[in-house]
């Protein structure tokens, strides 16, 4: 499955990147293709292009604050979870993709 994701937390120093790393690793283990945009203290990195978003079947928002550029994902299936969830139980999030 092709997946896009966004991670963001209030201070944007650590958890944003930990969650991104976790999602990337889990996706790889489960045989999915994923691209994760981080919205942290460094600004937006690894930004999702319209092309990336159009290609993907689903979007994961692992965020504690509102996502910048949310309108990019309009009409798309979005799974939104608290950021901690991605760190604590990333496989659980991917489970929900199937339903």
């Amino acid at each position: 499955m092709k997946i896009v994701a966004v991670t963001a937390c209030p201070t944007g120093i650590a958890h944003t990147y930990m969650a991104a790393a976790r999602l990337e690793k889990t996706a790889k283990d489960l045989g999915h293709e994923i691209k994760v945009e981080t919205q942290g203290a460094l600004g937006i990195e690894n930004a999702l292009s319209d092309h990336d978003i159009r290609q993907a079947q689903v979007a994961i928002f692992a965020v504690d604050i509102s996502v910048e550029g949310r309108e990019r994902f309009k009409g798309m299936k979005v799974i939104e979870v608290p950021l901690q969830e991605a760190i604590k139980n990333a496989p659980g999030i991917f489970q929900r993709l199937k339903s």
Partner: protein
Amino acid sequence: MALEFKFACPLPHGLHARPASQMASLANGFLSECALTNLRNGSTANVKSVLSIIASDIRLNDECSVRVNGVDETVARSALQRFISHELPHCDAPLADLLRSQPSRNVPRALRSAGVEICPGIAVSRGIAEGDVVMVGNLAAPPELNKESRLDNGHEQERVTRALAAVQTRIHNMLARRTSPTEIGVLEAHLAILGDVSLSSGIMERIAQGRSAGQSILEVNQFFGELLRKSESAYIRERALDIQEIGFELLEEIYGARRDSSVQLDRPSVVVADNLPPQQLLALDRKWLKALVLEAAGITSHTVILARSLGIPALVGVKEPLRILSPGEHVIVDANRGFLVRRATPPAHKFYQGQANTLRHRKATLARHAGRPAVTRDNHRIEVAANIASTDELGAAFGNGADGIGLFRTEMLFLDRETAPSEQEQFEIYCESARAAGKKPVIIRTLDIGGDKRVASLNLPAEDNPFLGYRGVRLYPDHQQLVQDQLRAIARASAFGSVQVMAPMISTIEEVRWFKEQITQVQNELLTAQIAFDPAMPVGAMIEVPSAAFILDQLSNELDFFSIGTNDLNQYFLAVDRGNPKVAALSNVRQPSFLRFLKHIVDEVHRAGKWVGMCGEMAGELQHLPLLLGLGLDEISVAGSDVPVIKERISRLSLGECQKLFAAALECVDVSQVDALLSSNGRNASPRTLLDRDLVLLESDSATKEEVIREMVDAFYVEGRTDDPDRLEEAIWAREEVYSTGLGHGFAIPHTKTDAVNAGSIGVVKLRKPVEWGSLDDKPVEMVILLAARDSDAGGAQMQVFSRLARKLMDEEFRSELLRARDPGGLVSFFAEELEVTV
């Protein structure tokens, strides 16, 4: 026929003790009666009495009229008028720093969670100490007073005269044993009160009206005490206690009971009182006196001033300490933060043990720099010397690693006394300094008075414009004996160390030649008398008058060295009186014009092959360090206690970068541009690595989350990565409160963005026993990694590293490697390699 004139009080703190005593001593030189009326409140005062002047509660802008009546009224009036218009405005008490340095009252998180009772107060003398509470009650009249029988007037008055003399003798005896200028100052103030005409005449009058000696003393005491307590000025209110103490001393003298023996300390003690009279403080056993807790004492009271000079931690403004605390109760006085800790629990004791260690280590870290020469990263050495005003300060100067005494201000030896110190007395003082310095240089500046500094023994006339008048070296030719006595004392001391002599306020070459002639003459006399001296003693001059800066080539033919006095130089250069609030903002040493002027001076001196230092206030401010290095000074001379931190900061700077910074500052068009340059480039000039083995603590005994965070914050403080550990601690907890940074698998990653850190840093703590952190997997943590970035560094390279580290921590292999680390150095190199940073 009486003469009258009016004036408005120009002093912001009102006509307080110091100007009042100058005014009274001036008035006492005349036979005429001098009466003053405060037109605001109608109270009248005898100008010859300090007590009476301050009791009339003259505040800023109060209209007053002075009436002079007697044989010398014309001279007396013009002297008083001159004093009031020209000198009074400059007579303010230098106590502002006491008010400024009040630390925050925030209770650190680690202590807040320790379950103790906190009694807030105001820290007035810094330090942390603990001990058992010893209560000291208020002054009370001796019980014998009520049982006394009154004798005739003459006899009663005789008792008072004897008591006055006895108390005076006793204070003189105390004075003889003291060397600290602060202690001497307070005791001399007490002598002045004892000698005040209003005090004795008030007592004698009441006896003549039929009261007993004791009753009269009590009444006069109450009268003045109440007058002073009614004052709007805290400074004056706080003098009430001094008068009260003297009154009770007189009573005790008459009725026997001695108070000194009433409070005996026999173990580490925290003395608690409503207020503690200064002499009573001096009488306490210093060995056991650990801290003071006072309810009513003011921050400018003599007791508080003494506590500061003796290094005794003190709190004031604690609510009803005599009622709340119990005698013998063990308390901790935290006068770094401004509160008292009761019912200390084991975690609280652990916190304070940690604090003691931290403060000791921070001192030791700085001391490593103190003992070494101050050398920049690119190997440029600059001397860091200390300024002193008395031999009291020698210990602090050399204990803190001063490379010498850059300025010994000798005028302090002449101020506040009736006669000038003798040659022998001065010799002993200079000699003590030379000996304490060993091979290090001691620059002794000869008497610099006039301007705002007055010396009673010289009887100098009042001037319209004292700063442009008869001061410094300009009055030397009229006081040749005084100058020669001092030079002879200095020359004799030169046989005992590396003594250098420096003249103040030089503006022409004639002054230098005259000064040198005196030295030659004195040295010839010593030669004849076969008294040892150093014939090669270097002779230098202060650069504080702009004219001197333009004849440095010529002065260099006569002199060996120069020292820039930035306060006066700046004021003369910019034509600004720093004491005048309307123009004070102009007198900024970072004016680009002034920086260019300094550059001219240093270049000229160096062109002539001579040495130049700086001893003014500008030298002591950390923010100026990069500029001063860039300027090319050979030495800076600062307060002794600041030597270690200045040396530490120099070790982080690079001369090359400082020179570039200074060149850029010379091109700035105003102060704000210079300031902006300093805050951006200043930091770049002192980069620090993110990681440091001293921030890696692999064997932590911390038992709670609070303790772990505190331990890290303290390590940052020891390493100079924060100067405000309490604020850093708060910032870390603010993030923790959003949700725990425990990420599971035994790791936590607290992080913060705050300018409470001096540089972006990574700290690591590995715990001996896992600690509960509220982690995502509900398991305790074994390793804690703290990421601290500066606000202004956000988005920079440090955040990149932090984000890489955060990602890596999701990798099990990386985590196991971290847990396997056995030594800090190994862990730092592992981090450096994985995160691609240099260490």
